[in-house]
């Protein structure tokens, strides 16, 4: 299933996104590396869903407007964007930074949400449990740390090495810093509002995640009412890339159960 590229004007910003498939709407919100490495999981999910995968403002092919300075602005932007796209009863799937954006949207309004799937999500801080500071390491090292399987990590590091001076890779890092520099990839006030996430929530986490340790998955499962935590064995920070055999059916079953 190939997803086509399209654009939509959202309050003056030309949002780039890919879309394909038929069925209930599924919004995929990417992590700090953007969509340059396409998650093949989305092709699979498009067999049963209308998958929409945007480049966040500042990432990939979407410019950053002067109206987005932080994660709060980004959340309001995306609430406008899903309205502009006419999406409703959406199954929102967010990875890492994208999970954080999804949560910031959800605590503001879940009116258009059907369910929420968080994969190795950022957004909160667990005291005493350090995340990897991705800004202090080279992209190669980040790639190695992102996988449980060292061979896959090494291959990803070689790709990162070839791409790190490319404009998209640099722009993605700048956009990530804009949202997540201080404090690193969390909003101290998000946690106190997580009770407002009133949609079925699935939390997926790689058992060997070295970027955001699994303790964060447990914390989300505790803080979001009714959330279910699924740990993915032999997976790092990209369980949907490293173990699609486990993650795809898990999301498909969850979406089927959560269908409104």
């Amino acid at each position: 299933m190939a997803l086509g590229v399209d654009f939509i004007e959202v309050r003056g910003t030309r949002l780039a996104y890919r879309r394909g498939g038929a069925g209930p709407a599924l919004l995929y919100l990417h992590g700090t590396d953007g969509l340059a490495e396409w998650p093949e999981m989305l092709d699979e999910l498009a067999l049963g869903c209308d998958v929409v995968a945007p480049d966040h403002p500042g990432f990939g092919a979407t410019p950053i407007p002067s109206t987005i300075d932080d994660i709060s602005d980004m959340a309001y932007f995306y609430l406008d964007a899903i309205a502009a796209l006419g999406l409703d009863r959406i199954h929102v799937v967010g990875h890492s930074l994208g999970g954080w954006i999804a949560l910031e949207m959800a605590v503001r309004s879940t009116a258009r949400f059907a369910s929420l799937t968080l994969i190795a999500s950022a957004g909160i801080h667990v005291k005493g449990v350090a995340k990897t500071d991705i800004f202090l390491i080279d992209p190669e090292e980040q790639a190695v740390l992102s996988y449980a399987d060292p061979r896959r990590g090494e291959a990803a590091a070689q790709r990162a090495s070839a791409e790190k001076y490319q404009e998209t890779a640099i722009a993605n890092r700048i956009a990530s810093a804009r949202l997540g520099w201080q404090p690193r990839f969390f909003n101290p006030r998000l946690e106190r509002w997580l009770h407002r996430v009133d949609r079925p929530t699935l939390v997926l986490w790689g058992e060997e995640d070295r970027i955001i340790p699994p303790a964060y998955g447990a914390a989300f499962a505790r803080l979001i009412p009714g959330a279910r935590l699924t740990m993915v064995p032999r997976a790092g920070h990209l369980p949907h890339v490293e173990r699609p055999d486990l993650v795809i059916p898990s999301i498909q079953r969850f979406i089927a159960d959560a269908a409104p």
Partner: protein
Amino acid sequence: MKVMCFHLMPYADLDLSVRDKYRSVWLVLPNSHFDPEKGATLYNRYLDELELCAELGFDGICVNEHHQNAYGLMPSPVVMASALARRTKDCRIAILGNAFCLREHPLTLAEEHAMIDVMTRGRLISGFVRGVGSEYFSLGANPVFSLERHQEACELVVRAWSEPGPFAFEGKHYHFEYVNLWPRPYQKPHPPIWCPSMGSLETIEWAAHPDRKYVYLQNFSPTESVARYLNLYREVAERRYGYRAASDRIGWCAPIYVADSDEQAVREARPHIEALFNVFLPKLSELMFFPPGYMSAASLKQVLIHKRGHRGGARIEDLIARGIFICGSPDTVRRRIAEAHNLMGFQEFIAMLQFGTLPGDLTERNIRRFAAEVIPAIRPLTDRDYRGFELARAGA
């Protein structure tokens, strides 16, 4: 030209073997490697060295700001400038510089600078910097907003120094209901403002603006880079703003070592200058000094490509050949500076006479020699000795 002495105040007693144990002496080197007893000796020695420069007739003495590292021990240059204020009489005291934009409230620094300016009856030079990239890790400021915050903080500080208060400052990053500095600075409308930089187009365009005409100071870099950026200031002034930049608006800062002969100078300086470049400067990651957003994506791409591989292994011969380090007999040093002046026409020269692990005895000899045998020869250099700036010769 005016000649000043700059001190970085490194932790010269650093056990250099840490280079093999830690990835950088910035940010991640445990401060258990700092011995306060040794630190006390170093601080007092370094202040003595700057006071000696003042006694020997330098036009100024300079300090700066860096955080969480062994490279420069002045997280607050204001403290050092204050210590020097009462121990010196005539020479300028230059803070090159302070990163106002790293602070949540830049007026705390503006107040401190105003105090020093009043105490010294107007001897302060105030340097506006953004801080190096590593500082954005140390202090948690977001590098993406660095340039915006820097420019806004500077506007705030200049207005606070020069406009009658109280007034409200209404910016994007800084909004204060009450701006009303007590004391106001001694100099009118405010202390001279300098912009020390490693060469950023954004900084040059901003500093050269006709409303500012701030002094642009290029820090130790190869001659070709120094020439490129100093000429860029003149070029931006002329091409973009339509005025001819005065030579007293540009300066160059370089490490210097003077001894009896070239051979002796190289022999004595070698371990200390190589320590500066191979132990004190190398960074954990190239991204540590150029964090995302610190400069535009286009500039960052250029810098990352050019800086590739600069992780130590510097040799003194190469540093001298590239013009990063001026080292030799008094005659060699005089000639090098005069040649550079002929090429670039700077009217402010800042000599860094202690560097890396250079010990007290060699530093003192270096200072005395430079004062006695170099300054008298370079101070008389004026625009008449400068080959002149030709817009046509400057880059597009």
